[in-house]
């Protein structure tokens, strides 16, 4: 088995999950409570990775972070390196790709917190930020955990995006799914078998645990 690839996938999934918790939470908060008319546009953009072919997303990310783009140029100036075909580049792509898996469970969880509880806290003189920390976070704990688990699992399983943005560099961007692809291409069916079975078992356990916690983990945008 390609332990290097498995290790890389786990590192990528962990990093992606952490970044998404930080980025996704305020976004989910905004989506839950904003009354802006154009909110649906943001919802649609966040949900895009659910329906887009990963190669399309990967292609645009590749262009967007390339050395000729403003983002890629800035990154090169700051670090001296390039984003495409690097771990950092993979991370950017993974964050976008797994965004709906963080934001949607969080929106579902935030939306199920009774708004009266927030208002009660505000009327007690507690700021919005503290109210979020002291009322919303504890009550949405399950949804936040679901978001983390799904994002982690989804990142472990990504293929097309990684191939487009990261290529196939051992130890840098060759994740477990690409390793399986390599093994099958080189007719190493035993290796592909083992690694695939590991991924199936991993994914099944993650989903079983998640569903046992929360019935509606996979629902799309909750009604609001």
């Amino acid at each position, binding site marked *: 088995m390609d332990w290097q690839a498995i290790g890389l996938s786990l590192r990528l999934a962990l990093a992606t999950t952490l970044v998404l918790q930080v980025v996704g939470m305020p976004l989910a908060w905004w989506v839950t409570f904003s009354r802006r008319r154009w909110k649906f546009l943001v919802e649609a953009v966040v949900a895009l990775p659910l329906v887009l072919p990963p190669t399309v997303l990967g292609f645009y990310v590749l262009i967007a972070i390339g050395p000729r783009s403003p983002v890629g140029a800035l990154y090169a100036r700051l670090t001296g390196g390039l984003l495409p075909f690097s771990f950092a580049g993979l991370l950017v792509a993974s964050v976008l790709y797994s965004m709906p898996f963080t934001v949607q469970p969080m929106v579902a969880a935030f939306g199920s917190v009774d708004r*009266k*509880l927030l*208002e*009660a806290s*505000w*009327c*007690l003189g*507690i700021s919005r930020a503290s109210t979020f920390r002291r*009322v919303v976070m*504890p009550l949405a704990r399950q949804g936040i955990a679901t978001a983390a688990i799904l994002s982690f699992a989804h990142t472990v399983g990504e293929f097309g995006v990684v191939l487009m943005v990261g290529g196939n560099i051992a130890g840098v961007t060759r994740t477990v799914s690409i390793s399986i692809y390599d093994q099958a291409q080189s007719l190493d069916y035993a290796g592909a078998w083992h690694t695939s079975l590991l991924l199936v078992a991993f994914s099944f356990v993650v989903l079983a645990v998640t569903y046992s916690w929360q019935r509606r983990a996979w629902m799309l945008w909750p009604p609001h």
Partner: protein
Amino acid sequence: MAATLTANCRCVLPGGFRLDAALALPLDEAPVTVLFGPSGAGKTTLLRLLAGLERPDAGKIVFRDRTWCDTARGVWLEPQQRRAGMVFQHYALFPHLTVERNVAFAATGQAAARMMERFGLSGLAGRLPRAISGGEQQRVALARALAASPDLLLLDEPLSALDASARIRTRRELRGLLASAGVPSIVVTHDRTEAIALADWMAVMVEGRILQTGPVREVFARPASAQVAEAVGVENILPAEIVSRGAGLLRLAVGRAVLESLDGGESGPVLASIRAEDVALTRDAVGASTQRNRLTGVVRAIAIEGPLARVEMDCGFALVALVTAQSAADLNLRPGESLAAIVKTTSVHVIPAG
């Protein structure tokens, strides 16, 4: 009297409901004010406007010397800056926190401990809100709001989440708690008995407008308009005296007659309030039912109002009954006739005369 709180708010709700309310309350002279009106009159919306949870399309709210909201000058204070404690209809206790932590949510440990003591919650300190009764939840909500030392207390239908027997008990308790809170309060209710029992001052709201404000007794005694009279329409409010009590019942002397009611723990001079539709009329001799208050009297006047007949009786005191026009015809009612009026024990509401 100088107004402590003035509010002048206009807004249109998403459903098209229009609120255009002008309110001026002397909260320092009359600490407990009831905002009274039928369901859908906009009472809760007005309370939320006062709390800062809704923004008016146009309006101005001034409490003491602070402007909370003035759309003309672009002044807006967030709920956090208004120091107006809110007790929600279903109390909105934080379900993940114990009673003690709920009360201490926005208070120093000392203030919270004092409130726990005063509201008799010490025995429930470690319980979660779902594990205590409705009446206890209400006390926790009140203690939580007061522990944050607000300048004004707003209560939205504080008794409506309770079952009937708890409501009667809690009503009396709540009056005492509000009167001794040291903070003026505004209580929303659509219940006439509650309004009389709780408030010093009363504002009547109908269809988004404040129609009359004044001392409770005065508003009930002298409604300024037919709309207010209809809104406050308790036909029978009778001065009564408690004669005796026992087995959960009170015996009340009303005029020459004696009425029975449920014992809510009242004492001293009281008012017995009876809705006209709760009075039944009969020609039968002594009925089989012993649970009922049976009064003999003379018919003074009959007025047919659509499908209903309003019958004014003299039972040693004036009693108004509302029966169907059909049964009035069946009884062949005529002024001057003698008749029996029957009122169920549970339909006699006892209100402290204060």
